[in-house]
């Protein structure tokens, strides 16, 4: 038998430390990996310099007309000049403060939702109120605000309104359909399944056409909903079916024991759903839910086919301006960057939320 003295910890050998180790393990670990590294460097070498030239080095930033753009690079002057159109569409100049206020309210809501300290009730109330307040504020006609036809709404503002309304309002409806699909009552279950499968079986464009062209045929004469409102209803109902399927996936991941424990406690159905089952199910469903919200955000551009001018169609429209012909590329790159910022933010936020709600590995 032997007794061993305690050993002090030593640093790892030089090749296993810091950047050297990282490069060895990640870039040069096998001959295939080495080949791939070389190939990647070559591709980056081919792509990055011309891209940098077009985006920045050869691009024009100063001026106010097309002739100020001389170089081979991008003509960002076009984007700067038309920025107002891109953001607000045809929203009347005098009422722009309402549009700005709406965007600020949206920002504030996101901030409240993202702060850990804000009370849960406040989060829920602000999120639910946001779409309603936005639409009322933008449309006016009440509280002494001048009425602004929805035809005049456009650009990023319209994209955000459609996405926010679609995401926020589809959520509770989708949750109800998900619960309906799990219901023990055959009628509710059948109706939910029928609805979800019907909607998921058709493209969004069909739903938009139905909402804008076919639906009015069924209205009694003289009654006409606003085109945007019809589109919002269509998009919300469409998205609700996807939310329902995502939440159902979450519900199926909840062990039977959780339902039984809630039942045995004496909680009513709605309380056990609200306090025990849904918080867990939605947590599981977050990655898929956010995925479908990101899809929706991008799909809002489809409203162009029913004559609404969202960000993308606004850019297309302005690129047809006689003074700015041939500026499509700059416009589309700008749109891509804007979409990317919003969607990447959503994606990051969902990651953060997942980590925050993870109660398995907490200290």
């Amino acid at each position, binding site marked *: 038998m032997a007794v061993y003295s305690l050993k002090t910890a030593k640093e790892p050998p030089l090749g296993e430390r810091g950047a050297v180790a990282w490069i060895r393990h990640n870039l040069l670990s096998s001959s295939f990996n080495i080949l791939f590294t070389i190939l990647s460097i070559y591709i980056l070498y081919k792509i990055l310099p011309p891209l940098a030239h077009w985006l920045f080095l050869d691009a024009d930033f100063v001026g106010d007309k097309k002739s100020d753009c001389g170089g081979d690079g991008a003509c960002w002057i076009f984007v700067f000049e038309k920025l107002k159109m891109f953001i607000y569409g045809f929203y009347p100049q005098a009422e722009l403060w309402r549009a700005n206020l709406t965007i600020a309210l949206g920002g504030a809501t996101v901030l409240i939702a993202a702060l850990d300290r804000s009370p849960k009730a406040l989060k829920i109330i602000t999120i639910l109120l946001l779409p309603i307040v936005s639409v009322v504020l933008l449309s006016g006609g009440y509280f002494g605000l001048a009425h602004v036809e929805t035809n005049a709404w456009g650009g990023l503002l319209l994209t955000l309104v459609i996405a926010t309304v679609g995401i926020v309002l589809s959520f509770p409806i989708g949750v109800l359909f998900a619960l309906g699909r799990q219901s023990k009552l055959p009628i509710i279950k059948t109706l939910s399944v029928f609805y979800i499968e019907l909607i998921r079986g058709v493209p969004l464009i069909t739903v938009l056409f139905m909402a804008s062209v076919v639906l009015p045929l069924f209205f009694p004469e003289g009654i006409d909903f606003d085109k945007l409102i019809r589109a919002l209803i269509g998009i919300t109902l469409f998205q609700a079916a996807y939310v329902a399927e995502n939440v159902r996936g979450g519900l199926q991941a909840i062990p039977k*024991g959780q339902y039984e424990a809630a039942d045995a406690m*004496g909680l009513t159905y709605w309380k056990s759903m609200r306090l025990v089952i849904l918080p867990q199910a939605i947590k599981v469903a977050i990655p898929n839910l956010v995925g479908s919200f990101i899809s929706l955000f991008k799909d809002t551009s489809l409203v162009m086919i029913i004559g609404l001018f969202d960000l993308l169609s606004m850019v297309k429209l302005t690129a047809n301006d006689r003074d700015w012909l041939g500026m499509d590329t700059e416009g589309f790159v700008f749109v891509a960057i804007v979409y990317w910022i919003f969607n990447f933010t959503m994606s990051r936020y969902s990651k953060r939320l997942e980590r925050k709600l993870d109660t*398995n590995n*907490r200290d």
Partner: protein
Amino acid sequence: MQEKKIIESSSQLRDLSEPMIELNGVNKWYGDFHVLKDINLNVGKGEIVVVAGPSGSGKSTMIRCINRLEEYQEGVIKVKNIEVNADVKNLRDIRSNVAMVFQHFNLFPHLSIIDNLTLAPMWVYNKPKKEARDTAMHYLERVNIAEQADKFPNQLSGGQQQRVAIARALCKSPDIMLFDEPTSALDPEMIGEVLDVMISLAKEGKTMVCVTHEMGFARKVADRVIFMDEGQIVEENDPETFFNNPESDRLKLFLEQILAH
């Protein structure tokens, strides 16, 4: 048998002639499979009944019928003279009198320990938060786990989780506690801490029905031990007779199998 005497002397609540749970001619089927056959069982106030039997014998199904986690097709079950049936008000009364502890604890993983405990008091009995928390802390101390109040279930060991589950059940101040194999999912070194809590409850005079394989527990605290096999009650007796002089061959075989090692 000394333990038993302590129970009898310490509890004025105990009155075996007052029925808390009555099962009369209960039959249940899963499809064509006859899972409970003519079950008759009365449990008196403060009585401690242990249900034993091989797996698949219907013992869990039987106690889950008492708080209607399972439905039965024939016969009558009454809890404190209220019939267990589809009536919503009956069910609410029954579930507020009956608490259950599960094999897999079934704590709510998204809620902290203290929130697990205050859920029923706040949302079923509308107690104010302060009062619910005080009650919760009282029972957490009772099961020696108060210092874990702000942790989440998955951060605790199995034995700790099951003690939390018992504390959660106690927060409803139930008259009746049902235990559905409370130690079967635990590592051997944790069984003791859970059984200790159960024994102390038994001493307080709670009415308890325990499905368990812990024969030591049965010997120590049970008033009656029931042996079930193939969906029926085969034998019931006081623990003394049950373990020392089993009558039926099936019980003899069962005891041989579980006590052999």
